[in-house]
């Protein structure tokens, strides 16, 4: 019986096809399930892999210059950890504490309202405005009210801030009292007769829970986030150490008919992805530097400009939406400023938002005219509608990680399907 089975090529072919089809279906389903079940791990895992991918040429360069593969890997891993630690320390240092956050919220609210009233030419009663207000006020007033509701501090938070202010110096105390007084005096733009505080019904937090949150859950959540992000250096090391073993493992299960074709496809895709990722990295660095310099020119602090430039540069890797993320974050920071000393004489706190937008438009112009054509070439020849839909679907499915990696994923998928199609034809496997 066994001999018959062994010597019957037709049933063996059928069995092979059934086996491989089931393996692909089960494997595919498992990958999709894991992607959703472990979605919080996607961003650190992918960033680790991308970093390793980008570092591969450096590894080869070091190896060519006589440094052993093991030593090169250790040097790169050490460098990666140091950069992560330094960046993490710097960013954590910039994150305000609980009371500073509350003050910041009140301060942003005051600045936004001041500027809105200024742009709209509103009088003290909020009844009469300029031409812009006559035109856009009916649309923007309710929006501002919603925004104010969102920023408004609850009774307990106001009390907390007052208690904290009592322990600070006179200047801080008076600043915070002034902010809180103005907050409680805010009126609705849509109906200036009504106080904002009357419109808002807060669900007061359970003090016990809040206390617990400060001491326990906050620490736990920070630890959770840290433990999640520990995956990133692990993935980086894992993929850096890999010397073709993964490819060998994949090729080992490929049927003979597809052997050479799969090797060629993997090589072509590998090159295309490598070029795309390295191109994107260079573009990101160039955009970071450009926005950093331009923001510093319009009066932003040099350190903050760097962080904002870096965020905007990374966000720029997301087509269409990326620029809005960068502009949005820079505008939020601009709204926090009460004073600005720019290299350009025309920049004031009142028109700073417009300058921020101008900076990003200029950076985008430089990116499209200079960086993209020289660095990326035609690596990302995707139709704008594909980019748009891809980014939306990615963000719906996997949140921020989906938004960030949707376009690279589409580029990779396009490269794989395109190369596969051409190779299948070249190897006479399809017509």
């Amino acid at each position, binding site marked *: 019986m066994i001999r018959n089975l062994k010597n019957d*090529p037709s049933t063996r072919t059928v069995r092979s096809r059934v086996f491989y089809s089931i393996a692909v279906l089960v494997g595919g389903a498992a990958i999709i399930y894991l992607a959703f079940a472990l979605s919080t791990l996607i961003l650190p895992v992918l960033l680790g892999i991308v970093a390793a991918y980008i570092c591969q040429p450096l590894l*080869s360069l070091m190896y*060519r210059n006589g440094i052993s593969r093991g030593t090169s890997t250790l040097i790169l891993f050490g460098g990666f950890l140091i950069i992560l630690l330094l960046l993490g320390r710097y960013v954590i240092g910039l994150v305000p504490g609980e009371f500073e956050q509350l003050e910041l919220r009140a301060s942003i609210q005051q600045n936004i309202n001041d500027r809105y009233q200024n742009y709209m030419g509103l009088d003290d009663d909020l009844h009469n405005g300029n031409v812009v207000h006559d035109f856009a006020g009916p649309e923007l007033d309710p929006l501002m009210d919603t925004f104010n509701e969102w920023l408004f501090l609850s009774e307990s938070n106001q009390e907390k801030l007052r208690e904290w202010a009592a322990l600070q110096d006179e200047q801080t105390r008076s600043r915070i009292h002034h902010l809180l007084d103005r907050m409680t005096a805010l009126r609705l733009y849509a109906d200036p007769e009504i106080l904002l505080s009357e419109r808002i019904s807060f669900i007061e937090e359970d003090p016990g829970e809040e206390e617990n949150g400060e001491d326990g859950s906050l620490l736990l959540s920070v630890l959770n986030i840290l433990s999640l992000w520990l995956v990133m250096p692990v993935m980086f090391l894992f993929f850096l150490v890999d010397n*073709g073993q993964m490819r060998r493992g994949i090729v*080992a299960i490929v049927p*003979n008919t597809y*052997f050479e074709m799969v*090797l060629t496809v993997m090589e072509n895709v590998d090159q295309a992805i490598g070029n795309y990722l390295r191109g994107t990295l260079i573009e990101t660095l160039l955009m970071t530097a450009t926005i950093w310099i331009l923001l510093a020119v319009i009066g932003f602090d040099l350190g903050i400009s760097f962080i904002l430039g870096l965020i905007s540069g990374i966000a720029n890797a997301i087509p269409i939406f990326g620029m809005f993320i960068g502009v949005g974050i820079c505008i939020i920071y601009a709204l926090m400023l009460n004073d600005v000393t720019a290299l350009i004489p025309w920049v004031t706190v009142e028109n700073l938002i417009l300058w921020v937008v101008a900076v990003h438009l200029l950076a985008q112009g430089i990116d499209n005219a200079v960086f993209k054509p020289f660095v990326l070439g035609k690596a990302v020849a995707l139709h704008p509608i594909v980019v748009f839909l891809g980014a939306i679907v990615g963000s719906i499915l996997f949140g921020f990680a989906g938004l960030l990696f949707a376009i690279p994923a589409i580029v990779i998928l396009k490269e794989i399907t395109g190369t596969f199609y051409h190779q299948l034809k070249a190897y*006479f496997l399809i017509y």
Partner: protein
Amino acid sequence: MNRSDKPAGNPLWSNVFQSLIKQKDQSRINQIVDIPIFQDLSRRELRTVSEMLYDRSYESGEDIFLTDQPGAAMFIITSGRVRIMLEGSGDTPDTTLAELGEGDFFGEIALLDSSPRSATARAATKTELLAIFRADLDKLMMNEPYIAARIMKQLAIVIGMRLKETNKQVAGLSQ
């Protein structure tokens, strides 16, 4: 005594998998040490080359590659026999150009470019092969140019010898 013959040390702590991997490495090196294009290489260099090789197993009558397919890899026969042939069409029967056995290699032009295969290679018996991929050799040229240069030199010599042999056969046919 070579490395694989060394005593394993404390059996409780000895790494079984590591020892298996080393044995496999040694066996691969032994398989390629007599291949003409690798004959100038040291054991250490052969180990580097052996890490680039892919194991393939073919049933009797199974095609390894077909005429006109783009070439991407060269194959070394570790066991079995392979028939190099021109496939007939219609009533024309297949023409066997050569039958190769253990230690022989074929498809070497694919290491130079992706031009179409000039003949079909088919396993005449159950056959085990080692494949070396062109892109891996290209990377070897970047990372280990001394090893790659010696392989390429031997490759040129082998291709030259085969060309001379073909010329002789053509001359014999024309007389």
